[in-house]
């Protein structure tokens, strides 16, 4: 892998350059926590953030996104694409992996969702190596470090950062800074950083790993634990909301006061919500919370595995933190494998 050595001043220059042609989004302070937001100045960026409240998906597949604009009286409609180039700065490896899954989801089956892909193709991803925090379990799902999915990946080394290059676009940006190629010692330091990090991740699947967890889920269809979880889960959908790989959506039409002009929008939806699988006739194919939790866990750890070549859960821990009753995928997996 190609790499360059960057000082914090270099990165500041890089971000300021990016601001000329991109909407630059980075982790910023939000009350007691952190969130991804468009930054005004470089100093807003929180390099040592643990994780953000919402994942960066909100910039690529927004909570409310206009798909079409229509005029009812004329039966006219036209698609709406937001082609603003976005630079996502400071993404941790888990969030980078999550965006790879979104890329797969929005282009699989030869159905290319241009509303997502247009934004994505124009976007730039600059990753930032992280320190584990209380809720992480990335090592169990194989997303502790990112080998691809980024344009540039920053790894803290002595007095600066190793900028690993993921794409030509990334390399062009770093070269423009006049940065010098990183020496072998920087790569060694980066490797050491990652090893140390991996050691600090204490929340783990006990008996399965990223490749075998799907088999565990397949075997556990009738496990009594699903019923036990039903007693706790409030079916609020918070886990869906904060999940970096939850991309399911509902579509709704909105009209303005003339009742003539309107927009067709997609809105984040969640498989934990009671109506998610309910059809017009009133039949609900996943009426019980136990069925919905089982569905969600399977979707994150089993169902999409074959198509996406890994679990779709990236172990960011946001769902555990957001859950009012602290339902935790690590505990679920360990209970199922007991």
């Amino acid at each position, binding site marked *: 892998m190609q790499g360059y050595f960057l000082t914090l001043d270099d990165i500041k220059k890089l971000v300021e350059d990016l601001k000329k042609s991109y909407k630059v989004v980075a982790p910023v302070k939000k009350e007691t926590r952190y969130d991804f937001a468009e930054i005004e100045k470089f100093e807003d960026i929180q390099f040592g953030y643990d994780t953000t409240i919402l994942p960066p998906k909100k910039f690529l597949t927004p909570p409310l996104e206009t*798909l*079409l604009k*229509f*005029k*009812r009286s004329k*039966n006219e*409609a*036209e*698609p709406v*694409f937001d082609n603003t180039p976005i630079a996502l700065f400071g993404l941790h490896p888990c969030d980078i992996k999550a965006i790879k899954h979104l*890329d797969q*989801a*929005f*282009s*699989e*089956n030869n*159905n*290319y*969702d*241009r*509303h997502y*892909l*247009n934004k*994505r*193709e124009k976007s730039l991803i600059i990753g930032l190596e992280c320190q584990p925090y209380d809720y992480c379990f990335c090592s169990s799902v194989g997303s502790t470090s990112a080998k691809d999915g980024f344009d540039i990946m920053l790894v803290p080394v002595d007095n600066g950062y190793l900028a690993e290059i993921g794409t030509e676009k990334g390399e062009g940006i770093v070269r423009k800074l006049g940065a010098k190629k990183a020496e072998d010692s920087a790569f060694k330091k980066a490797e050491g950083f990652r090893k140390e990090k991996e050691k600090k991740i204490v929340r783990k699947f006990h008996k399965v790993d990223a490749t075998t967890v799907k088999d565990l889920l397949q075997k556990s*269809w009738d496990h009594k634990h699903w019923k036990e979880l039903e007693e706790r889960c409030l079916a609020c959908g918070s886990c869906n909301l904060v999940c970096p790989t939850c*991309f*399911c*959506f*509902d*579509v*709704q*039409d909105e*009209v303005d006061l003339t*009742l003539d002009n*309107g927009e*067709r929008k*997609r809105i984040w*939806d969640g*498989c934990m919500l009671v109506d*998610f*699988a*309910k*059809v*017009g*006739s*009133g*039949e609900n*194919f*996943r009426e019980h919370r136990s*069925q919905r939790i089982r*569905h969600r866990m*399977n*979707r994150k750890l*089993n*169902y*999409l595995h*074959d198509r996406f070549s890994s679990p779709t859960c990236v172990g960011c821990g946001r769902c555990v933190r957001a859950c009012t009753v602290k339902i935790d995928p690590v505990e679920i997996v360990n209970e199922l494998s007991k």
Partner: protein
Amino acid sequence: MVVNPMEKSLYLPKLAKMTKKERFTEKEMFFEFRFDDNSNLNHRPGQFVELSIYGIGEAPISISSSPTQQGYFELCVRSVGRVTNYLHNMDVGSYVGIRGPFGNGFPFEKFKGHDMLFICGGLGVAPLRSLINYTLDRTKRGDFGKVYILYGCKNNQEWLYQKEVEEWQRRADVETYLTVDKCTDSNWKGNVGVITTLIPKTNFDVNKTIAVICGPPIMYKFVVLELKNRNFKEENIYMSLERKMKCGVGKCGHCQINNVYVCQSGPVFDLPTVRKLQEAI
């Protein structure tokens, strides 16, 4: 990431004009639609469309006409939600948006040379009518052997496609068996009981018959049991499954059954596949 240069939205419908409308029952209506450019929908029996009305929304509706009927397509729609209620009140000549056809449809190429057993419960006759009329089309009739149609509905007021059902009954090359769940009408002289009660009365040859099932979710398990009692081979049993299908293109996640999206891998599945999907029936 796969880059596709086409600047196209998967969600932009094509306009179709309502050219016929007929009330079947209190809840169900029949509609014929045509595209202004006279193009065909180019569907397979068993596929569905997303029908949309700007400002109201979009709903998945199975296609009820056979692809051998050229220049137009037909839908039979029950009013159960915003889109379908609105559609029922629209006039002939109005336009709706159509996306699709979506889904796999029936693998009718594989059915060639077989006898066909259609088992339709209630509104399930709508998608099956597409395949029935395809099978009975004079250009295709020779591809298939005997045709058996079992059709059941709640009571004598609920029949859909009544005139066509009468035609099926008159045809010498079709055996049609009807049943009502409850007899509320003294004029009804036929069978009373759920659809499964018709299966023992039908004299099909299990060695050369394909069974195709569509009906309310509760129906499938019992129909399959009854067919198994007659030693039907699992691989000769096909069914079309209903799920919430918001996007039709494998993105929105609503129609998922275990690891498959019904809008992509379905809505038609054979029984061996359904057996592997714990949530299917």
